[in-house]
């Protein structure tokens, strides 16, 4: 029986499929290659034009003086409100160098935990005031906390006295904002970073610490970084909001929590550097930025 026109063998069918698939693949490859080639045909009046024309250069060549208030976040024992400011020079509209400085010793607000410890501690001392021969009292609570909690717990807490942070600021994003479709503001989003010098008050190191709750100061050096957004109110001023990370180790409570036992994770009845804990300190800053000279430049 000969092969008719409509009759094909299995081998022929397979060959057909392979050739068809190859042809379709070739077609698809040709299409995508041509589509890619079409992209380079971009012509017209906007071809090669910058993304933004006549951009108001709020920063370029201007000094920035920004009084600021900063609030610490996620504090365990006391919240600190730092009063200070930022002074920087903007070399270009996207790069600046300056410093942020603030004083934190003026406003400190104790947390619920601090109040709770102080209240409990005051109650214990009232119930068991101790004697000249045994100043730490006789109760178990008084004796176990003699080296950790002083008469006024708030006075032994660690605090940030001041911060000075030279920093570079990069401003990669510049834009505008429509508020309620009636108020229009220029904005920019920036990132900053640099070293920070932090003046700290902490409980002083001691070897025999029962009843000794003196504090000392030191300067910690830590990295600081963050991001912020500015809303330009007029030609020479802006309102700024900033988030800052300031991680370093310090003793926030004045407790003897480490230095002894396995891996130094147990109390050793002394206050030492081992009692410092790593804290990722965080701050929110609100600033009012003033730019000098008062007139900004405009890009082409």
């Amino acid at each position, binding site marked *: 029986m000969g092969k008719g026109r409509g009759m094909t063998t299995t081998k022929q069918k397979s060959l057909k499929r392979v050739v068809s698939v190859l042809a379709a693949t070739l077609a698809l490859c040709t299409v995508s290659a041509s589509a890619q080639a079409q992209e380079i045909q971009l012509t017209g009046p906007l071809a090669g034009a910058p993304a933004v024309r006549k951009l108001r250069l709020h920063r370029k060549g201007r000094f920035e003086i920004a009084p600021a208030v900063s609030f610490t976040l996620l504090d365990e024992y006391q919240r600190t409100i730092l009063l200070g400011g930022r002074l920087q020079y903007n070399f270009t509209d996207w790069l600046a160098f300056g410093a942020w400085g603030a004083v934190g010793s003026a406003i400190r607000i104790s947390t619920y935990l601090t109040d709770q410890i102080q209240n409990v501690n005051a109650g214990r001392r009232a119930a068991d005031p101790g004697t000249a021969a045994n100043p730490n009292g006789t109760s178990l609570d008084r004796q176990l906390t003699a080296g950790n909690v002083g008469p006024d717990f708030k006075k032994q807490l660690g605090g940030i006295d001041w911060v000075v942070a030279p920093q570079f600021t990069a401003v990669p994003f510049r834009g505008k904002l429509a*508020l309620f479709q009636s108020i229009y503001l220029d904005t920019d989003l920036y990132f900053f970073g640099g070293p920070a010098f932090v003046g700290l008050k902490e409980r002083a190191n001691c070897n025999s610490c029962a009843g000794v709750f003196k504090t000392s100061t030191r300067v910690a050096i830590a990295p600081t970084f963050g991001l912020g957004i500015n809303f330009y109110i007029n030609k020479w001023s802006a309102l700024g909001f900033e988030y800052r990370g300031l991680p370093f180790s310090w003793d926030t409570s004045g407790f003897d929590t480490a230095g002894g036992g396995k891996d130094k994770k147990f109390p050793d009845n002394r206050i030492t550097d081992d009692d410092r804990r790593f804290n990722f300190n965080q701050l929110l800053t609100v600033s009012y930025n003033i730019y000098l000279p008062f007139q900004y430049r405009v890009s082409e």
Partner: protein
Amino acid sequence: MKSSPIGLLVAVALGIFPAQSWAAGKSHAAGKAAAAKDSKGATDSAVVDADASGAGAPATDAAAAGDTAGSVTATPAPGGDDSATPGGGSGLDDICKIDPAACPNLDMDKEAARPLKEQIFAVQQAYALRVRRLELQLGWSVSMNDQFVSHPAPVLALNYYITNVLAIGINGEYYLNNDKEFNAQVRRSARVAVPLTEYQWAAALNFTYVPAYGKFAGFGDFIFHYDAYVVGGVGAISVRPIPVIDPDNRNFSFEPKLAFNAGIGLRIFFNRWFAAVLEVRDYVFNDKLENLTVDRNPANKNTWYGETSLTNNVQAQFGVAFFIPPSFDYRLPK
């Protein structure tokens, strides 16, 4: 092998089609080049004409006459000679042929010199319209104000935009709790225990209002759009105390509490249906804390709870948003 030639024909056809498009682009370029060549020693108007016509040939009259682009007027040439106008007799010339009375007579030099007082919108045509679109948010939240127990949680939210600025929606999250080492240190050092609370889930019905939108130019090169919103709602949060005063006897069960929430958020659009979301929201609820004292009968459940406290659970949320349907039509051109 019957279908193989068909496939090859399709391949050739598809290959030729875009190749022609590409060739058209080349011819533009060629036209430009030719026009530029023609206009050497004459004017730049030939280049303008070449762009307008796409051929380059009609530019020769103007170039030969020494006209400039600025001197070309919309006035028809005497006798209806179309060749005097760029483009080879189209556009305004057609109007003049149909109705000479309606034929505009503009001096382009004067028109070009007129000061433009056209109203320009500070933010033209919102990049992504939200009206009648569903927003699906997927995210991860972290607690911002609980230094004792962290409450990270995956978050899912659905919002339907009734108008371009107002949405109604729901959200839910499932908490993972982490009792920090710091708590044990405080208990050991000061012999003071602070009541702790862990969360299980939260769900809420919310209203979202979008009062602000804008755009940023990134590195002066690309532009992305964003909007800022406020959100508020009411729902429930399931919580229970972590037993720290008498953990040997007390074992609390989760109980849902009425919770109000309010927050602000920022949405950064990568395209018209996909955005990154940053949000800070405060969930406020009345929390029943563990009793700080132990009763003589510690197994009595009625003595386990102490005072109630209005608790603020401030969370920061990071996530992405998908808008469905992904495309939309503008009602107005601007």
